[in-house]
C-alpha cells in the first residue's frame, strides 16, 4: 500500500503506517468524496498464478487464506447482519483481496481515543459508558468476544447536537466466537487489559483451554476500563511482583479498587474483575446498573495516609481505596487511603460523600 495508490477504487490519501497496528499497515482513503480507514493485512497472502512457490505450496497457502476469509466473514456477518443497527460498532464496509493482499475498509470516524474520562462531566461520562456497554451487548448477543478491547480501541465521537460523546468500538480483526479463540501463539490481546484466563491460555497453563475464553474475558477487560475511565488509572496491584492486573488476579491477589467509585460501581467492577469467570456479570446486568445516572459520580474523603508501595496502581493514585478480596475467602480488608496525584476534585465532576455518617 502506497500513498496515492488506488486499491479497488479507494485512493490512499495518507502515508501508510504500521503505527498502532500489530499485524497490519493502515492509512486513510477516499472514494467518491467519502473518507475511509483502510487496513492492509500482513497475513495471509494469497498466491496468484505469478506468485512464488510450487503448485503444492500455493495450494497450502490458499487453504490458509480460505480459513482466514471464513473467520472474517463469520464475524462480520454476525456483526453486520444479526446485530445490525449497532451504529457505534465501527464495522467493515468492505473486505476484499486485491492481488495477493487482503484489505478491510471502514468508515473514517471523526473521533479519538481517550485515556480516561476524568475531565468529563457526569452526564458526558454516563453517555460514553452506556454507549460502550451497548456496543458490547451487540457483540455479546452475537456470541462474539472482542478479544482486543482497550481504551485505544474505543473512539469518542462528539455529538453534533449536544455537548456529549458516544463511544465507537473499533477493531474486530482479532474477535472470535465465544469459546473458540485462535491458538495460544496466535491469539491477540493487550498485556495490561487481558483477563487472567487469557494470560493462562497464552502461557498454555494446562488448567485453561479454549473453552475458557468466553464473553467473560471481555467483561474482565471492561471492568478494568471502567475503572480507568472513571478514576484515571487501573485498579491497584502489587507492581513489585506483577506486570499486569491479570497476573495479580491469577496469583490470587486482590486488586485495589478506588474508594472514589460509587458503591454500586465499586461492587460491580469488583465482580467484573473477579478471578471466578462464573462470578462476572453479563453485559445485560452491567447495563441495568448503569441505568442509574448516579453510578458514575465520584466520592470519597480527602486522603490522609499514603498508599503502600505494594498496592500503588499507577503513576497517579486515586483516593479512598477499598481493597476487595477477589478470592471470596476472608473478609475484605481496608488499606490506608493513598496520597492523591491529581486534584481531589476534577474540573467537571462533583464529589459526593457516599458515606452518610460523614
Amino acid at each position, binding site marked *: 500500500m*502506497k500513498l496515492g495508490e488506488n486499491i479497488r477504487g479507494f485512493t490512499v490519501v495518507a502515508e501508510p*503506517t*504500521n*503505527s*498502532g*497496528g*500489530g*499485524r497490519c*499497515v493502515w492509512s486513510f482513503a477516499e472514494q467518491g468524496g467519502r473518507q475511509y480507514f483502510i487496513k492492509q493485512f*500482513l*497475513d*495471509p*497472502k494469497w*498466491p496468484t498464478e505469478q*506468485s*512464488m*512457490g*510450487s503448485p503444492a*505450496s500455493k495450494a*497450502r*497457502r490458499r*487453504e*490458509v487464506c480460505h480459513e482466514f476469509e471464513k473467520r472474517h466473514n463469520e464475524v462480520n456477518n454476525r456483526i453486520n447482519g444479526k446485530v445490525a443497527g449497532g451504529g457505534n460498532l465501527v464495522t467493515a464496509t468492505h473486505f476484499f483481496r486485491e*492481488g*495477493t*493482499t487482503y484489505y478491510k475498509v471502514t468508515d473514517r470516524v471523526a473521533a479519538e481515543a481517550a485515556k480516561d474520562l476524568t475531565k468529563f462531566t457526569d452526564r458526558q461520562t454516563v453517555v460514553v459508558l452506556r454507549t460502550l456497554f451497548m456496543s458490547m451487548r451487540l457483540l455479546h448477543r452475537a456470541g462474539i468476544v472482542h478479544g482486543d478491547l482497550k481504551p485505544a480501541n474505543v473512539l469518542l465521537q462528539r455529538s453534533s447536537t449536544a455537548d456529549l460523546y458516544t463511544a465507537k468500538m473499533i477493531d474486530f480483526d482479532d474477535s472470535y466466537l465465544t469459546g473458540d479463540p485462535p491458538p495460544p*501463539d*496466535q491469539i491477540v490481546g493487550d*498485556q*495490561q487489559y487481558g483477563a487472567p484466563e487469557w*494470560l493462562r491460555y*497464552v*502461557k498454555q497453563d494446562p488448567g485453561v483451554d479454549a473453552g475458557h475464553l468466553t464473553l467473560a474475558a471481555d467483561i474482565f477487560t471492561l471492568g478494568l476500563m471502567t475503572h480507568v475511565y472513571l478514576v484515571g488509572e487501573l485498579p491497584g496491584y502489587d507492581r513489585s*511482583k*506483577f*506486570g*499486569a492486573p491479570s*497476573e495479580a488476579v*491469577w*496469583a*490470587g491477589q486482590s486488586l485495589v479498587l478506588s474508594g472514589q467509585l460509587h458503591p454500586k460501581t465499586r461492587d460491580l467492577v469488583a465482580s467484573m474483575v473477579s478471578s471466578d469467570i462464573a462470578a462476572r456479570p453479563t453485559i445485560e446486568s452491567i447495563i441495568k446498573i448503569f441505568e442509574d445516572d448516579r453510578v458514575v459520580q465520584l466520592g470519597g474523603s480527602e486522603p490522609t495516609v499514603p498508599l503502600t508501595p505494594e498496592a500503588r496502581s499507577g503513576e497517579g493514585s486515586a483516593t479512598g481505596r477499598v481493597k476487595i478480596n477477589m478470592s471470596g475467602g476472608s473478609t475484605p480488608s481496608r488499606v490506608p487511603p493513598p496520597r492523591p496525584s491529581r486534584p481531589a476534585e476534577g474540573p467537571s465532576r462533583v464529589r459526593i460523600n457516599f458515606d452518610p455518617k460523614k
Partner: protein
Amino acid sequence: MDANSISLKYAVDIVFCIDVTGSMYPVLDQVKEGALTFHKRLEDSMAAKDKAISKLRLRVVAYRDFADKPSNALEQSAFFTMPGQAGEFESFVSRLRAGDGGDEPESGLEALAVALHSDWERGLDRRRHIVALFTDASAHPLGTGSSAATYPQAAPATIDDLLEVWGYGGGQSAAMENAAKRLLLFAPDTTPWNEIAADWNNTIYVPSRAGEGLSEIEFTEIIDAISNSI
C-alpha cells in the same frame, strides 16, 4: 503462586541485514546510528506502554556482492544480548564500512537467507523475530557467485525455496515461527524486493525513493512493529 512463573515474558530477536556496498555510503551512518540507539529507544517505547521485553537480542548480517568480491561479501555477527553485550554490538556495527559491491545488483537474497536461518529464541511465552533489511539496490538471483568458498550454505537454490524457508501459516519447512516473524524491507521498488513484499506474509515494505535515502521513520517503523504487537 510464584509471581515470576505467571508473568508474561517476551523475547525479541532482531537481525539487521545491511547492504554495505559503496552506494550505501551516504546512508550507512544513519543505519548504524539507528541500530546503535535502537535498544534504548525500544526500551523507552515499551516502558511508555507499561510493557517490558524480557530478553532482547540483536544481530547484524552485512553484505556486498559475491559476484564482485567473495572475500568480503558477507560479514555477520552472532546475536548480542542487550543491554549486557551492548559494547560488543556497538563494536561490530562501528566497524562496518561502505565499499565495493561493483554495479548493482548485490547479494541481498543470500544475506536474507542467512538472516532467516538465525538461531532464533524458542523459549519464553511470546516471541517476536524480526529481520530488518536495508538496501538501495536490487539483488542477484540466488546462486550467483555460489562457487566461492565463502558462499553461505544457508542460501537455497531458488527464490521459491527461499519462500519456503520464510514460510506461511501451516507451512512445515519454515525456519521461523509464523506468528512470531516480521520482515521489514527498506528497499527500492525493484525485483526481487517488490515481489517478496507481494508474496511473503508478515512483511512490511517501505520502498525507498531515489535520492531520499533512509530516514528516521525507518527505525520508528521497526519499534512500532515490535511494541504494538506484544
